[in-house]
């Protein structure tokens, strides 16, 4: 913990003398006109922490406690059981396809939006955000309407012996849909803020478009890109509603980890359900840690750039 605080202090502008730096970062004193009495502060912190404990920390801890409630043997057995392994494989496939696809889309969309001016840009931005406001269940439903037996291509698919819904392609498609905006949304605002001077300079110096992308643009946005990938992956592996609609719940074939958890839970195999859930909870924690690191790095490089300008 202390190392973290130290690096926080190091981020204060170098020109500021040490005492001033300390006051800038130290908690406001109770006597300050712009702070609250100590008892008010303590009460507010207490209430906020109580709320977070009840709604966040206890549920998180309970996942791991319940997972180990029947001992390590039961825990391990739940993870290596055949259906769990195949669910894990399918989850990895869904994330492994949707993350790269949405990554390429995110870079392409951000390049067009941030580096060029064109009519309809705001409409495009709104459309990119659209999957965020579509309920996961509806995201699954739309693929049923197209590829389901009563859907647009349902009979054609059946005649050609192709399966999309109640099979792996449907699960992948639904996952791609719900994770669609994640990377684009991280990249677009940052690339817009960075402008296009560096790319134009590279162009004038004779770099090709791909060279500019690889050597100038992507290095500039690497932290946002990484964060987008992390978020996209977390959501892809954890998606439940959309995948549940198109999966058909065929054990060992079309179950992802979240769906496997549901089946175990509804079978009253609570320890096994929580054991599988603990995998996804651990993934969530890793995501949060990576997010924390990425944010610190992004802040650090941002401050470094600003300091260079002074």
């Amino acid at each position, binding site marked *: 913990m202390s190392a973290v605080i130290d690096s926080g202090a190091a981020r204060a502008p170098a020109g500021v003398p040490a005492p001033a730096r300390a006051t800038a970062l130290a908690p406001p004193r109770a006597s300050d006109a712009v702070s609250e009495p100590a008892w008010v*502060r303590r009460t507010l912190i207490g209430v906020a922490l109580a709320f977070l404990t009840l709604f966040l920390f206890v549920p998180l801890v309970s*996942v791991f406690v319940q997972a180990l409630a029947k001992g390590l043997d039961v825990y391990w057995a739940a993870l290596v059981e055949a259906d769990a392994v195949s669910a894990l494989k399918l989850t990895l496939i869904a994330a492994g396809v949707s993350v790269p696809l949405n990554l390429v889309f995110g870079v392409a969309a951000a390049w067009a939006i941030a580096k060029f001016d064109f009519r309809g840009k705001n409409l495009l931005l709104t459309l990119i955000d659209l999957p965020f*406001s579509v309920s996961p*269940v509806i995201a699954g439903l739309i693929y049923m309407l197209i590829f389901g037996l009563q859907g647009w291509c349902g009979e054609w698919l059946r005649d050609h012996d192709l399966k999309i819904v109640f099979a792996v392609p449907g699960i992948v498609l639904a996952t791609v849909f719900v994770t669609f905006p994640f990377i684009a949304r991280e990249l677009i605002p940052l690339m817009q803020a960075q402008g296009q001077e560096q790319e134009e300079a590279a162009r004038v110096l004779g770099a090709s478009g791909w060279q500019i992308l690889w050597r100038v643009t992507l290095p500039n946005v690497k932290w946002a890109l990484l964060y987008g990938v992390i978020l996209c992956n977390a959501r892809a592996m954890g998606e439940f509603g959309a995948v549940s609609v198109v999966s058909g719940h065929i054990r060992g074939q079309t179950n992802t980890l979240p769906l496997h958890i549901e089946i175990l839970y509804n079978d009253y195999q609570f320890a096994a359900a929580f054991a599988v859930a603990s995998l996804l909870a651990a993934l969530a924690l890793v995501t949060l840690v990576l997010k924390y690191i990425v944010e610190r790095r992004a802040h650090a490089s941002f401050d470094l750039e600003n300091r260079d300008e002074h």
Partner: protein
Amino acid sequence: MSTRALLLRRHSVLPGFNLSLGFALLYLCLIVLVPLSAVFLKTFTVSWGTFVGTVTSPRVLASYRLTFGASLLAALVNGVFGLLVAWVLVRYRFAGRRVVDALVDLPFALPTAVAGIALTTLYASNGWIGKWLPFKVSYTPLGVFVALTFIGLPFVVRTVQPVLEDLQRELEEAAATLGASRLQTFAHVIFPALMPALLTGFALAFARALGEYGSVIFIAGNMPMVSEITSLLIITKLEQYDYTGATAIAVVMLVAAFLLLLLINLLQAWARRRQGR
């Protein structure tokens, strides 16, 4: 078809406009727009009377009441506590603050099914929290509220936090110099400045709650007319091969979501103007 003619871009020395925009538009159409249009096209195949009959049947109306009511209540609770958490994280220093700050995003990162089974077990009448409560939470509409509060928690905190960090301390000092008490300063100086962000966070949490499925179905009990949310009703109709009914309800929820999206965009534009950007 040339995207350049269609979209009239300003001249630039950078290459790759047609390729990047072309790919982005194609992908957007294939993954989002065409599939989404299927919902509306499907609705046009049914008569107006059938549509209205489906989306206003008593069981569907009961699910709207529960979904909208619990979402609103959860967003309100998140508005109050989210503001408090943002305030405490920005203004005060205490042990473990950074860990708490990082964990606020947990509901974004934790799969909804995991949240669902964890909350259900905790709030069941023999659970860690439920056994201390004199009333039932799991398998009642109250459980829906608990789940929706969990998943909406980060929205208000994360929209209010940056605004609070950027707030100029000078304004508060000026208010104090002019004789305002701390409470007056909060009510007349700080709170109005936070209002656009707070409303945006509230609307985001509400919108997210409306479409939530995974965390709710475990804890709700899913009794028709009592604790059945609209998303579940869509799935129930699908499982009965009633695609038309499912689509009709989905259209209602989509329209509500789009209206909220519009509202959120307006709120964010307002917030940007307030911040003078």
